[in-house]
């Protein structure tokens, strides 16, 4: 450790001379992991028995009455080298037990595998004579959730920061993808399966022969930031981060609708992830007593090193004798394209203390998101596709000469502007006016048109759709005299949003403030079901600092959203039926149920009550109570409908009878309910889109209600005894999500209702016990031993996955796994702590 410190002292002067450029930026805020979420130094000496040192009895509290914790014993000044004082330490040891458990949820965001663990380390150096400092810290060294931070700077002058952090994300640990080439852009079938010609027995044999595979990705992000104070009022920053995501995750893939079995096929494939993102942001900040401004510019570049995913089809997508089904051998995804985003942003504030104590703020930003990837051919297969008289050669579609344009040319520009003005026109009354405008401008314009054939559209599902369903190839042929309705043009969704409002605040008593607010939000949307929506919101709030450090915040908000006339089909111009010469456009199927209202645009009335009360129960005991009730009414008959209720209540007590003792207990309860309704259509061309019409008869109506109930309880105890320190935490979460339904008749569904027009799914349930124990035994002034234990018991039941275990091949659908499973895991750790 001394040699390392000596080395650092030698290179520090070099770093100081090099750090002349002026950079600065925001740092990623969290560096930690599951064992140490706060990323603190666990090797510090225990809590200070003297408390924080306030000259009064009992613990201190924040102005809202929240107890302040007891700080750790301040580290003693240690070695000094060339003016640098050093301190630091590390904690290292071994983990054992169920750390290697393969369960997906256990491993989702953490790495607790058995074996050696350098849990955390820190080296801190100060040179008070020059106001310089250096920190180097990290944790979980070499593991999938490792993190490191480096800081070097001079107080009130400049700061150089570097970080590196890994975040694992495990999606599945028992996946059984039958393909070879996982993690690449090409998935090929194993020997024994011929693309486009597989039978059920062969596919099942391939599944049985496939071992368990883990699908995961690691997000590795690193960055460098430089902050420089040019003067007391002006500072600048430059920040650069680079992030790599590598791995694989579950994905989809379809060759027509797979129900009933043998018609089409769908399957879960594996998406390769090989992303690189670079971000750079630079800016200036100015702040004096009256005036402040921020100016920044940033650029973000995303690169996907794997452009496409081509996978071989294990199924024979036949519907009876279909000679072309064998040509549907592969499917191809165009994976997320490379993109760039740029933005400049400015904030300004000016205070006018002598004019009604007013303050003016203004913010503005302008940005652009762009993507111009080379487009792939519309089809990947060869040979003839389609059926009967609707057959066509895939060779007309499987090269880029079949495209109307070779590159995407996609771009969306964004802009925001906000203004605010506050003033105190009469004693104690504060008025605020605010307005915020935000807009997007979508410049993307793509037409699916094949110049080789003169057809509009694309071969749907790489030729599978038309091969199974006659005249459903995916494209319209002008002059053919045949109806063939397809979405053929990109839709440039845009919006312009304006929020404005007034706020009045007045102290009605000492430390009690009443406020009232009116806000209106107006949104204009292009190519959506409503051109305009507007929402008026009224809010009153009370904030009070009552006696003995208690505080109360209560607010009630009422909102009413309305809008312009609802157009159930605003997309006509983007579909082939709008093309000149299209035969009988009125003979098309209705686009959708005309009475359905999409909930993001629908009329809505919403009331929200929030309350929060912090109270000092005793000098060493505080209590917190909060609640939230929200009722939203959707008057529409179809889509989201009726009353949507959400309510939550939380309580917590904190107990701190002495500086070395701390305990807490919390409980949260939340319930919600949401309703929706629909009508199963009869697919009658040219019929009315209205509820009760020929295509959407009321006898086919149905309703679904989704409820949730969540409970969470937990407690923790932290005690510093002279011979050991104990930190124990326990949390229990219990969630239940019932889904119930009712149908007007069997006509509401093609699935058998078995005579029961009302029913329910098995509840989705999630229960988790989580207990964590830490015992630290001081051995000497610098050395301590730590015993660690983590226990998780998670029970998950989700009807989406029930029945898939051992049955990954369901008719013409192939799944990767049976979803996340329940588990019970216990990990023990033995560590040594060493302090410099």
């Amino acid at each position: 450790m001394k040699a390392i410190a000596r080395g650092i002292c030698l290179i520090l002067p070099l770093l100081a001379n090099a750090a002349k450029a002026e950079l600065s930026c925001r740092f990623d805020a969290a560096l930690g992991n599951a064992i140490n979420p706060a990323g603190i130094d666990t090797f510090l000496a225990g809590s200070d028995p003297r408390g924080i040192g306030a000259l009064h009895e009992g613990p201190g509290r924040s102005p809202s009455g929240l107890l302040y914790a007891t700080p750790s014993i301040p580290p003693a000044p240690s070695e000094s080298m060339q003016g640098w004082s050093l301190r630091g330490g590390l904690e290292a040891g071994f983990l054992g037990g169920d750390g290697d458990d393969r369960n997906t949820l256990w491993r989702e965001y953490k790495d607790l595998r058995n074996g050696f663990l350098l849990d955390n380390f820190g080296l801190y150096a100060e040179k008070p004579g020059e106001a310089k400092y250096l920190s180097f810290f990290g944790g979980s060294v070499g593991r999938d959730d490792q993190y490191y931070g480096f800081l070097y700077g001079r107080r009130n002058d400049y700061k150089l920061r570097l970080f590196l952090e890994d975040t694992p994300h495990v999606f599945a640990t028992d996946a059984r993808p039958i393909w070879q080439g996982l993690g690449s852009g090409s998935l090929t079938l194993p020997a024994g399966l011929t693309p486009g010609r597989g039978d059920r027995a062969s596919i099942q044999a391939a599944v049985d022969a496939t071992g368990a595979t883990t699908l995961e990705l690691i997000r590795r992000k690193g960055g460098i930031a430089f902050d420089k104070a040019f003067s007391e009022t002006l500072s600048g920053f430059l920040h650069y981060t680079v992030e790599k995501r590598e791995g694989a995750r579950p994905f989809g893939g379809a060759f027509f609708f797979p129900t009933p079995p043998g018609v089409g096929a769908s399957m879960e494939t594996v998406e390769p992830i090989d992303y690189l993102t670079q971000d750079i942001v630079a800016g200036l900040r100015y702040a004096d007593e009256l005036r402040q401004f921020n100016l920044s510019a940033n650029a973000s570049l995303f690169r996907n090193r794997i452009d496409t995913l081509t996978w071989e089809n294990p199924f024979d997508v036949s519907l009876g004798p279909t000679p072309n089904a064998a040509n549907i051998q592969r499917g191809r995804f165009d994976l997320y394209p490379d993109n760039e985003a740029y933005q400049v942003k400015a904030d300004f504030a000016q205070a006018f203390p002598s004019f009604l104590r007013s303050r003016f703020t203004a913010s503005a930003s302008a940005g652009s998101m762009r993507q111009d990837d080379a487009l792939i051919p519309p089809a990947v297969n060869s040979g003839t596709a389609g059926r009967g008289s609707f057959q066509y050669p895939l060779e007309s579609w499987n090269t880029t000469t079949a495209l109307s344009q070779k590159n995407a040319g996609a771009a969306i520009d964004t802009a925001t502007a906000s203004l605010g003005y506050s003033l105190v026109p009469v004693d104690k009354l504060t008025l605020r006016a605010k307005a915020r405008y935000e807009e997007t401008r979508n410049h993307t314009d793509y037409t699916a048109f094949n110049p080789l054939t003169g057809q509009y559209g694309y071969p749907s599902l790489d030729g599978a759709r038309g091969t199974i369903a006659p005249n459903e190839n995916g494209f319209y042929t002008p002059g053919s005299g045949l109806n063939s309705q397809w979405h053929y043009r990109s839709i440039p969704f845009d919006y312009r949003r304006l929020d404005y409002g007034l706020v009045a605040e007045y102290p009605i008593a000492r430390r009690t403030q009443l406020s009232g607010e009116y806000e209106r939000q107006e949104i204009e949307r292009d190519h959506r079901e409503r051109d305009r929506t507007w929402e008026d919101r009224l809010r009153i709030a009370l904030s009070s600092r009552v006696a003995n450090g208690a505080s109360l915040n209560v607010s009630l908000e009422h909102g009413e959203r309305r809008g312009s006339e609802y157009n159930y089909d605003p997309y006509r111009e983007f579909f082939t039926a709008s093309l000149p010469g299209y035969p009988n456009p009125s003979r098309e199927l209705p686009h959708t149920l005309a009475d359905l209202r999409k909930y993001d645009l629908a009329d809505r009335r919403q009331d929200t009550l929030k309350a929060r009360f912090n109270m000092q129960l005793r000098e060493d005991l505080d209590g917190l109570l909060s609640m939230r009730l929200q009722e939203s009414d959707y008057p529409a008959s179809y889509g989201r409908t009726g009353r949507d209720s959400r309510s939550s209540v939380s309580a917590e007590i904190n107990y701190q009878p002495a500086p070395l003792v701390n305990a807490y207990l919390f409980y949260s309860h939340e319930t919600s309910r949401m309703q929706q309704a629909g009508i199963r259509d009869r697919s009658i061309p040219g019929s009315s889109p209205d509820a009760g019409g020929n295509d959407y008869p009321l006898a086919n109506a149905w309703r679904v209600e989704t409820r949730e109930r969540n409970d969470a309880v937990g407690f923790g105890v932290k005690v510093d005894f002279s011979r050991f320190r104990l930190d124990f935490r326990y949390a229990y979460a219990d969630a239940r999500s019932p889904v119930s339904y009712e149908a007007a008749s069997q006509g509401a569904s093609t699935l058998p209702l078995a005579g029961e027009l009302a029913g329910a799914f098995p509840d989705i349930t999630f229960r988790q016990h989580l207990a964590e124990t830490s015992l630290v035994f001081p051995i000497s002034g610098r050395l301590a031993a730590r015993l660690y234990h983590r226990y998780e018991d998670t029970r998950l039941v989700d009807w989406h996955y029930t029945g898939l275990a051992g049955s990954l091949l369901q008719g013409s659908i192939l799944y990767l796994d049976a979803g996340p499973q329940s588990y019970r895991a216990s990990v023990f750790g033995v560590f040594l702590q060493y302090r410099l």
Partner: protein
Amino acid sequence: MLLPLAAQAQEATFVGEKACTTCHVVINEHFSHTSHAKAFRANPRNEREGRVCEACHGPGSLHVKDPADKTLLIGFTSRAATPIAVMNGQCLSCHQGGERLHWPGSIHESSQVACSDCHNPMAKFSREGLLRKQSVSETCYGCHQQQRAEFRRRSHMPLPEGKISCTDCHNPHGSTTKSLLQADSVNALCYRCHTEKRGPFIWEHAPVRESCMNCHVPHGSNHEKLLASPRPFLCQQCHANDGHPTELLARSGTAAGSSPDARLMARSCQTCHAQVHGSNSPSGARFHR
């Protein structure tokens, strides 16, 4: 500097740091390890910072004479007689602007939240930020208890695992957005980590482009992928197009039922419509490719 009225009236004067540390020995030990102490002592920007304790607490001559009278010094705890506006004004006199430019009029300010409700600069509890607790999330949970429960749900952002914090998405000091977001919109915020979904794509999904929260909840969910409700019912709230989106999907369609149906099993609609966030494939108008 805003002085308590009593102090103003009696014309308090500065006494120097040593006068403070004569009595406040232990608190000085803790304070000495904070960035304020180190900056003020080693490289003060101005005369005020050079006063160290009195830079924040104001001139202490009256307090030295009568320590029991809380009105004679600026305090930052519940025992102080200092109004919250004065407390915050002290902090903002140095820390105004930057991330705190929109603090005046923000929901926290309107709710009379004091800087020292979240920060405790007298000792080092957290690695950065001089927080009241060891981490940002524990500090926020002091008032936002419901969010602690949300992060413990079946699918959640990796906040309990220490990989993300509240301030990665929110600016507690104020912003131009209602939810105190760190970006101009929900999507601009989400794109910071989920850059692949930024696109734009030649085939867009309208509710996706407008707001990620049309389908997802930000903290934790009882459903996969932080979805607001279970598939396929989430999708059916908007989609009643002809054919397979319109019908009621009942229990018999699960894998354990009599008629297993792709729309109910596993990824549900996304088994086929895998590119639900938008597609750049010329054949991706329905997000199949």
